């Protein structure tokens, strides 16, 4: 490249780097005037166009550059970004392949070709490229790239099971043929061990592990040590591993809990687990033999616990686990040991926050044991004079609460428990008076306990006043402990139950959820959020929340892949499968598509329903439908101190008592895809022609799309609320009824394509790639076949609206705001889906040509009923909102809360109640406004 040209190209890069895509395009045009054939500038312009969202124009340039088969670094690099932006990984492979073939001694090109295949998860070709590179450049790393590619291909779920062993064997052969042993490099060693484990070549693995280099690696590398542990387990060498662990504990002072587990596993290695019943118990001989083993371990752990004292919990916890297992195996010799150890544990570590969690696995006691244990806890002095004493009191409450039986869980008993927790909370609060605002208060958990009791009381009798009590107390606790995120999370759940979504959202925002947390935690605010959406009235708060939280998926698809490649470059093989897994879980996240569906359900309420929206959403939904979802949602983050016989706090506070899972997603996807594909002109043929980028692979076993859409599984439906279930049956009836008419009227693919081609040409001045159909007819095409016989509308449609009307009345009269909102939004959705289904039959010309007058006449009563029900709900919601904010209503609630304590003053209670009622009022008013807008828009 000439210096002059180089100088001209610099500003293009600068513009791209700073994100000024438009000026990058201008700069490119300048250079292209003088050098119209320059591939690099063309590639850079294509890149700028992609980033500027001008995909059609970019495609043209992109194809030109690809045809020229570039080999220089800069052009290839620019093209790599273009193709990634367009999702055309296969073209990227072709491009690098061609370049590498032209310059087979160019190592960098070889590596890029390999990486291109990695990006596309094209393991077979990646492996071939690596093999070629090894032959050419004789670098060990390429041998390992090859082996790793084989392993990844074996792990790919599209690879047949019978191929897996073969691929692993191939990988093993490669590694053993390397001139240097794998143990020169911990990650090579890791890969080697992984392969041996998969092939069950335990002896060979052991030989490697016992070399000095092997031992050394496991000493300092946790990942390799983990594989080593796995290997020992798989080959059944539990006793050996136990001995080794014992040595580490004694000689190196290792307190890794995994070592303690190894000792315990070793102790019980050859004893089959007792399954109860007369014949299952071990023989007396065996018992004897084990009792000596157990007593060895017992004395080992006892010594450790004495030696460590309060410094480390391992010894004592090891003793507990040992006794627990002995009981499970029916070889326990001391009926009071478990209890004794638990007591000891509580005495020594009862002032640590983790005590409850540590003891939880051993709490399932019965009869006398339980009585004795309860006595221990009750004997705990409920002193609140020191931080340690407070923690001990908290632990004793958590531990006793866990085992409360049904007779102990009466309303009165729960009320007095809440009172106790609150009075202790207030009493202990001054202990943390001088803590900085960034610290948690020592007594926070007492407030959490009391809040949990209130939620349980609400669940027991349905009395909403307990939710108000919970809110008041938790808000107070949060004002004293601003960083107590657990309290905040509880409040978010309760505010949603109270129909106060905006207050919940305020709290959610204060959590400052970022990055990957948007995937794991957004369910707190986005789960069934369309219930609270005021999008129809123009308030886009929740829709934008959906968009923002979905950003993480874009970052994932743009970035994560890069790190797989970096891990290859840095030879960190242990990380590669992990990164791929991570990318996959995030890409196919269940929450991602729950959010997507909620977004769509809200979107159609505020945007005009048009073929543009329908087509775009349809394409996206079909992509989503092919995903194998992974649930990354974090529910564990909510504290749970409910008794073991009662639902946990998470389940208790789910909106409508149901969590959306795969079934919910599939149910809604099926409905929306059915409705949208009927309403759309996009057939498979059209889609195939027009889609940019690679399509996901679908197993043919699943059947055709149509078959998959028609299937409704029981388990899927179980995740729906009764009203959602009605909606699903309604859409099924609707789509079944109208399908033949849609199929009859929909223009053939050739006409649709010609139309698109015409538009593209108008926009870009160039013909559409790959479509060469001359429009034979303008506008509508009359089909040869007769119009299908007009059928009556299924009764289900009318029934749906009537039934929902009754349900709405009932919810309103019972004062169940959330349910009323849920029903109202579902009716609104049903109505909008009806609108979507009937758009095609709107133009008078269509009706006339296809003789559909009789059909269209049947729409009228349904539409009218829908509008009527929506209008009634509008009026009802308006009247609910006027009653919401009155001072009498508020006073009622303040009185119902009945906090007479001087600590929680009347004003702040009043404030909290006001926030809730304002938020309820807002959602009622907004919903009414939105419904009435929809009526106006679609009434004619």
């Amino acid at each position, binding site marked *: 490249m000439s210096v002059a040209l180089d100088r001209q190209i610099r500003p293009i890069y600068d513009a791209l780097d700073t994100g000024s895509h438009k000026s990058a395009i201008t700069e490119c045009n300048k250079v292209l005037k003088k050098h119209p054939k320059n591939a690099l500038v063309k590639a850079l312009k294509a890149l700028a166009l992609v980033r500027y969202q001008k995909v059609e124009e970019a495609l043209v340039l992109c194809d030109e550059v690809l045809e020229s088969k570039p080999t220089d670094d800069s052009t290839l690099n620019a093209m790599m970004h273009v193709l990634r932006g367009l999702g055309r990984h296969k073209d990227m492979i072709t491009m690098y392949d061609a370049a590498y073939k032209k310059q087979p001694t160019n190592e960098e090109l070889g590596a890029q070709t390999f990486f291109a295949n990695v990006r596309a998860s094209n393991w077979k070709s990646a492996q071939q490229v690596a093999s070629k590179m090894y032959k050419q450049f004789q670098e060990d790393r390429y041998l390992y790239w090859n082996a790793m590619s084989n392993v990844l291909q074996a792990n790919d779920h599209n690879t047949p099971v019978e191929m897996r062993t073969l691929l692993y064997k191939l990988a093993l052969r490669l590694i053993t043929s390397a001139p240097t042993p794998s143990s020169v490099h911990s990650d090579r060693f890791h890969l080697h061990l992984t392969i041996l484990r998969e092939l069950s070549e335990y002896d060979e693995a052991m030989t490697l592990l016992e070399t000095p280099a092997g031992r050394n690696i496991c000493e*300092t590398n*946790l*990942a390799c040590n983990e594989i080593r542990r796995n290997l020992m387990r798989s080959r059944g060498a539990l006793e050996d591993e136990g001995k080794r662990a014992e040595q580490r504990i004694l000689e190196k002072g290792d307190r890794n809990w995994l070592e303690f587990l190894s000792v315990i596993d070793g102790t019980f290695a050859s004893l089959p687990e007792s399954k109860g019943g007369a014949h299952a118990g071990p023989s007396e001989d065996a018992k004897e033999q084990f009792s000596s083993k157990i007593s060895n371990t017992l004395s080992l752990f006892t010594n450790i616990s004495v030696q460590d004292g309060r410094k*480390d*919990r391992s010894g004592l916890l090891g003793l507990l686990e040992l006794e627990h297992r002995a009981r499970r195996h029916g070889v326990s010799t001391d009926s009071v040991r478990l209890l004794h150890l638990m007591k000891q544990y509580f005495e020594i570590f009862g002032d*640590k926050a983790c005590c409850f969690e540590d003891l939880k696995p051993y709490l399932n006691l019965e009869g006398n044991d339980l009585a004795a244990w309860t006595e221990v806890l009750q004997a705990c002095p409920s002193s609140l004079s020191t931080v340690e004493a407070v923690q001990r009191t908290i632990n004793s409450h958590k531990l006793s609460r866990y085992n409360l039986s049904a007779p102990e869980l009466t309303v009165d008993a729960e009320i007095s428990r809440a009172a106790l927790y609150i009075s202790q909370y207030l009493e202990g609060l001054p202990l943390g008076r001088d803590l900085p*605002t960034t610290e948690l208060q020592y007594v926070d958990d007492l407030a959490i306990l009391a809040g949990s009791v209130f939620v349980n009381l609400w669940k027991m009798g349905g009395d909403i006043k307990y939710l108000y009590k919970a809110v008041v107390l938790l808000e107070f606790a949060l004002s004293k402990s601003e960083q107590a995120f657990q309290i905040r999370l509880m409040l978010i759940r309760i505010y949603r139950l109270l129909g106060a979504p905006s207050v919940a959202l305020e709290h959610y925002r204060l959590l400052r959820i970022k990055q*990957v*947390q948007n995937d794991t935690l957004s369910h707190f605010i986005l789960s069934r959020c369309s219930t609270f959406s005021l999008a129809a009235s123009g308030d886009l708060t929740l829709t934008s929340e959906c968009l923002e939280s979905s950003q993480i998926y874009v970052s994932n698809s743009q970035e994560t892949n890069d790190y797989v490649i970096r891990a290859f470059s840095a030879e*960190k093989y242990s990380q590669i499968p992990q990164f791929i897994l991570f990318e996959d879980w995030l890409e196919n996240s269940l929450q991602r598509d729950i959010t997507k569906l909620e977004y769509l359900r809200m979107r159609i309420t505020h945007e005009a329903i048009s073929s543009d929206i329908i087509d775009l959403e349809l394409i996206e939904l079909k992509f989503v439908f092919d995903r194998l979802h992974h649930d990354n949602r974090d529910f564990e983050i909510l504290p749970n101190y409910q008794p073991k016989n009662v639902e946990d706090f998470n389940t208790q506070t789910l909106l409508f008592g149901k969590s959306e899972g795969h079934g919910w997603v599939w149910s809604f996807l099926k409905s929306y895809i059915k409705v949208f594909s009927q309403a759309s002109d996009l057939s498979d043929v059209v889609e195939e022609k027009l889609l940019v980028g690679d399509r996901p692979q679908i197993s043919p076993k699943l059947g055709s799309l149509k078959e998959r859409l028609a299937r409704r599984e029981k388990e899927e439906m179980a995740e729906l609320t009764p009203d959602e279930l009605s909606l699903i049956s309604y859409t099924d009836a609707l789509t079944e009824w109208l399908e033949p008419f849609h199929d009859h009227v929909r223009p053939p693919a050739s006409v649709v394509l010609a139309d698109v081609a015409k538009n593209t040409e108008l926009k870009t001045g160039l013909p559409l790639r790959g479509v060469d159909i001359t429009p034979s007819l303008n506008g509508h095409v009359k089909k040869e076949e007769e119009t299908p016989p007009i059928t009556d509308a299924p009764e289900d449609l009318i029934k749906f609206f009537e039934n929902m009307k009754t349900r709405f009345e009932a919810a309103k009269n019972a004062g169940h705001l959330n349910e009323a909102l849920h029903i109202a939004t579902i009716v609104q959705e049903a109505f909008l889906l009806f609108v979507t289904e009937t758009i095609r039959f709107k133009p008078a010309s269509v009706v006339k040509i296809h003789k559909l007058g009789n059909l269209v006449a049947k729409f009228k009563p349904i539409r009218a009923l829908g509008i009527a029900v929506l209008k009634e709900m509008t009026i009802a919601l308006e009247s609910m909102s006027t009653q919401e904010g009155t001072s009498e209503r508020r006073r009622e609630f303040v009185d119902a809360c009945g906090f007479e304590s001087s600590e929680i003053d009347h004003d702040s209670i009043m404030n909290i109640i006001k926030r809730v009622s304002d938020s309820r009022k807002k959602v009622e008013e907004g919903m009414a406004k939105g419904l009435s807008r929809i009526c106006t828009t679609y009434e004619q």
Partner: protein
Amino acid sequence: MSVIRSFKASDMFKFNNVNLDVWTETYNIGFYLHYLSRWPDLCCVQEAPSGRMMGYVIGKAEGQGSEWHGHVTAITVAPEYRRLSLARKMMSLLELVSDETYRGFFVDLYVRCNNLVAIDMYEGMGYSVYRRVREYYGNLGVGKGGRDEEDAFDMRKPLSRDSARRSVRSNGRDIVVSAHDVS
């Protein structure tokens, strides 16, 4: 007492109870993947027997010549698992790997000058102040620590390879450098 194991990319789905704490930052996914793709053996997790995450450490190896060392980028323990010496155990692992695998001369870390609890703890582990870095941290907007809140101590502990203890000095607290002098 806890399980010590390597940090895995999928731990990003599990670390909320650690990261929702005000002192712990949640970085973009590239941050974690960058460390894992370079120094996976310097990143580890502590887990309760229940499988709940208790804390983690993320480190790297860097520097030229006699400055080649292990660096603690982030170390954190969830509020409910504090005061159980978890940080100490993660630090010793990082020191071990920096010493034996990377053959570094020392391990270093940055700490807010007003974080007396942490400074005490690190001193107890054999770290000493090497220098004070002006305005290393942004203001958290909490408390009024003044300069001590924004400035950092660069604390170091020599490893076996630095038998002459050249990487530490006794007057480190008096040596002040500005933030752009350090990497």
